[in-house]
């Protein structure tokens, strides 16, 4: 995530990667606007999580799980349920991640992935109300990285979307002041899907879905959440202090829109396997 360049990576690596980019090449053979293969496995926590997905983006992999609980609504939104997304940098996934409370970059990861879902208003939270002011469904989607070879944001975004799309939970109703199951099984009321696409800027080049080596030498990155209507629903410049021109932002949006179609298709295909 962070700006490792001066601390960990030698300038030679950066020069090597840029000299490849000068020839239109990346170290793993991809085109600049090409994603690594996306593998999505849904229902990986079938006995305990209401929804789940394991996502591989090359050698980056994450697992996301969804829990649906019944809780009180917030006082200022008595007829709305609640969605929260968290993500973290578990030390299991990389020698670069620390044990201990999350640092700034881990907090950014969690907030950017959360924003990608919430700002896109993909979940109709009004439909998560059971009884006005009393009971609502709370939806928690939590992401754990297993392997970190760059671009945790996009992998996490895909995993959360796939886990939410395949979430199934028992419908509840209030009967004589107590909650009982109706016997129906519900899905999360999704009205849209937005996925995050991250573009790294290295020198004068824009490369999508950066691997770790590329992140380490990037000047900055731009994450763009794109929905099914090709609208931008969230953006975040991070991962370094390099500036971006207006033209680079425009190009990045072009790449993000293009790639979002493939990703959304992949999620929908994976979701079909859950009835």
């Amino acid at each position: 995530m962070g700006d490792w360049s001066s601390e960990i990576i030698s300038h030679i690596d950066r020069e090597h990667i840029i000299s490849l980019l000068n020839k239109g090449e990346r170290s793993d053979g991809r085109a600049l606007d090409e994603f690594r293969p996306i593998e999505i496995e849904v229902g990986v926590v079938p006995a305990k999580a209401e929804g789940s997905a394991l996502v591989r983006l090359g050698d980056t992999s994450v697992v996301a799980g969804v829990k649906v609980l019944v809780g009180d609504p917030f006082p200022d939104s008595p007829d709305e349920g609640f969605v929260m997304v968290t993500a973290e940098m578990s030390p299991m996934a990389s020698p670069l991640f620390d044990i201990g409370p999350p640092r700034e970059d881990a907090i950014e990861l969690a907030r950017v992935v959360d924003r990608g879902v919430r700002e896109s208003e993909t979940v109709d939270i009004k439909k998560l109300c059971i009884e006005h002011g009393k009971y609502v469904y709370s939806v928690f989607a939590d992401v754990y990285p297993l392997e970190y070879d760059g671009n945790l944001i996009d992998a996490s975004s895909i995993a959360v979307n796939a886990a939410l799309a395949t979430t199934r939970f028992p419908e509840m109703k209030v009967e004589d002041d107590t909650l009982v199951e109706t016997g129906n099984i519900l899905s999360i009321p999704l009205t849209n899907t937005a996925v995050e696409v991250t573009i790294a800027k290295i020198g004068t080049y824009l490369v999508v879905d950066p691997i770790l080596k590329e992140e380490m030498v990037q000047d900055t990155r731009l994450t763009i959440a794109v929905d099914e209507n090709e609208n931008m629903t969230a953006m975040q410049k991070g991962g370094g202090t390099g500036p971006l021109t207006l033209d680079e932002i425009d190009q990045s949006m072009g790449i993000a829109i293009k790639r979002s179609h493939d990703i959304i298709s992949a999620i929908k295909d994976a979701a079909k396997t859950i009835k």
Partner: protein
Amino acid sequence: MSPEKKPDNLINAEGLRVDGRRIDELRPIEMKVGVLKQADGSASIRQGKTYIIAAVYGPRELHPRHLTLNDRAYLRVVYRMTTFSVPDRKRPAPSRREKEISMVIANALSPVIFLEEFPKAVIDVFVTVIQADGGTRCAAINAASLALADAGIPMKSLVPSVAVGKAEGQLIVDLGDEEDKYGQGDIPMAILPHTEEIVLLQQDGSFTREEIIEALQMGINSCKYLHEVQKDALKAAYVGATSDEDEENDDEDDDYLDDL
């Protein structure tokens, strides 16, 4: 304490916003440099009802040591809201939102500071939001870059910042609280004024690709205006401070200030 109500329209039939502004009009802005005596540099900004103070300490020794960078200074930004700056009382402990904003502010300011001149040191930027009424992270960047200049930290330029957004389908600049809350989207941004490159960029809401570009262009225009306001604030402090000293250097100082 009393819950705010959503206005019927954020832009009325005459094309004016809830506070009477045109869509590309900034709120009244007042920036002051050198407002705190203990800090090495400081500045305040009032932008509409938003009121923020920034203080800079350093370059100075960094504790804890393990954060030390060997090839440059560590720019540490702490953005904090007072408990009473928002409608509900904010909890006193730093929130995850405050930590993330601290990071994006540091990212926006880093490109203009000659950090490599102070290896192993820390430059501390403390931002306190006294009253929050929209655009606090942008106002914080405006004030913090003035505080850095006031502290004599070598800089390539000041960093102007503004939030652009959308309401009633129209792009607007410098969102107030209500526009942020009930509008259709928010794009906080900051630029390097000499190159128009973007050093802060976040977005929420929903925008087409064309709207983003148009919004950023509006933001760049506003930032260029804000940059002039920043330079004026710096000159006001500087001229005031040196008026009874060496008059001959004034032109040179003006040149330097114009470069920032």
